[in-house]
């Protein structure tokens, strides 16, 4: 058994960092902007596929990591400016439904452009190999992934909490009219936040590609899990999204050792438990 359990736990943390990255974006859009984005998983899937194309064309994974968040963020800007803002007055239900339509479009567009078969890319050469851990070894790439995700999550947090723009955004969320009066276009700022949020999902998709590969339905699977993450962590809490993500990743990993058949169900059972005991989530405010 030596090393296997440690490997599982490390895998759980790595997967948890992906969840955290996705849920952090979801929290920006959902918790802060109050836009229910059910297409978040679709942006994640797009991120993986765009990364696949960049890697196939240039052979450079680092370039993909740099380009993908930008491409996906720009798509997000378009979606927010054209649809979400227009639908804000119609209410949440119609925003959800529009993003549901986006899911249908993106999923089928992926099949159309990239085909229905799973795709994959190799781990970048610089990160090939792994650290020895008992009788086995843990891949370098996964460690890089966890660190990269942590850095990005930290950077976004820093931008929101410690910079002038972050202060304007937070002020805009608290009192949009007042910020408007000072002469700042709040809507445009919010659109940028929306772009950053889906950009994080796209980055997560690109990062997971060398491990899991890409498949058209990958976004849908992620969506339900990241909802559970957000519910457990607390809707609207950035810290909650990160802790919730790691918690869910670890829960999956531990259940895979103990009782694999229930590894998915356990997450949702944990979610139900949180709702019953602490409806606002672990880090949510009432």
């Amino acid at each position, binding site marked *: 058994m030596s090393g296997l359990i440690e490997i599982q736990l490390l895998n759980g943390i790595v997967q948890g960092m992906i969840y955290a990255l996705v849920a952090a974006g979801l929290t920006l859009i959902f918790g802060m902007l109050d836009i229910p984005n059910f297409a978040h998983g679709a942006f994640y899937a797009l991120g993986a596929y765009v990364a696949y194309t960049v890697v196939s064309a240039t052979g450079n994974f680092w370039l993909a990591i740099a380009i993908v968040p930008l491409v996906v963020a720009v798509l997000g800007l378009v979606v927010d400016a054209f649809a979400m803002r227009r639908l804000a007055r119609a209410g949440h*239900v*119609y925003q959800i439904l529009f993003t*549901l*339509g*986006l899911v249908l479009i993106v999923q*089928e567009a992926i099949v159309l452009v990239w085909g229905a078969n799973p795709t994959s890319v190799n781990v970048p050469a610089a990160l090939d190999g792994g650290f020895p851990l008992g009788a086995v070894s843990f891949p370098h790439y996964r460690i890089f992934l966890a660190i990269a995700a942590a850095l990005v999550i930290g950077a976004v947090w820093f931008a929101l909490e410690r910079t002038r723009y972050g202060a304007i955004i937070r002020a805009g969320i608290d009192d949009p009219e007042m910020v408007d009066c000072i002469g700042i276009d709040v809507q445009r700022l919010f659109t940028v936040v929306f772009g950053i949020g889906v950009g994080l999902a796209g980055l997560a998709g690109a990062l997971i590609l060398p491990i899991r590969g890409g498949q058209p339905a990958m976004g849908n699977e992620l969506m339900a899990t990241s909802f559970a993450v957000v519910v457990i962590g607390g809707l609207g809490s950035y810290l909650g999204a990160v802790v919730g993500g790691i918690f869910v990743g670890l829960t999956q990993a531990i259940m895979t050792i103990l009782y694999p058949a229930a590894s998915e169900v356990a997450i949702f059972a944990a*979610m139900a438990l949180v709702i019953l005991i602490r409806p606002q989530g672990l880090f949510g405010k009432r």
Partner: protein
Amino acid sequence: MRRFAVLVAIVVVAPLVVHYPALETQILTFGLLAVAFNVLLGEMGFLSFGQATFNGVGAYAAALALIDAHAPLPLALIVALAAGAAAAAIVGSLAIAGRGVYGVMLTFAFNEMAYYIAFQWRDVTGGDNGLRGIPRPDVLGISLDDPTRYYYFTALVVLLAFAVVLRLNVSPFGAVLRAIRENEERARAIGYRVRRFKIAAFAISGALSGLAGGLYAELYRFVPLQAIDLDTSTSIVVAALLGGTGSPYGALLGAAIFTVLSNSLSHVWSHWPLIFGLVFCAVVLFFRGGLWSLAERWSRRAAHA
């Protein structure tokens, strides 16, 4: 009343005009799912993203009652109805703990949970092989083996359920649901126990969905894992919205169009969901009343002319 008479006439005549009884039965069961979804969205204003949960629970319950207990078909359908109602009451009571979008996410997440349970619990559900070998017992000594006969049996059950929904919508209960939709705080302030009404609405929606699931299981004498997956939930939402959530007739219309299109278009162009998604986004952006409101506008114009 006149609309209902027209609906009955269409349902009775349909297989005589275009003879695809299996497809037409599927339209009815899927239509009942859309109508059940609309009890929550159209009346109460709650978008449930997990309707396939109740459909699947009903389908498995009916199938097990038929296979293991050799239950008569009407009893199996009652079991399906009760199982759907119970599942929906549980999911509903948890989901309404979260306000607004939060509740929608919960129905979505619990659907995924139900899917994984069905996927893993092979002894009961057959996992991804599905549940096979469902018998089709006679009802009142009449054999339903002929697809057309089964169509008329389904039509009878679905029309009855539909009539119940119509009655419910004009009842005081329906009025309370609409009051909750328009202003939940006010409904509570007047003294209605909002939480109970919400859970009751979930139970009713779940009962109808469970019934639809039972009918569906007997239609193909098989319950595929898809009966409980999120794609089915999505289809229900899309179909009901396309038809229009302002009326149960709209939901039924949407379900009929969705079923026919998904059956025919998939032969023409395998990427048809792409166009469907675009049309759906356009409906959400530009005419939220759906097709039914369009039809109503035309009929009003025709009446004035």
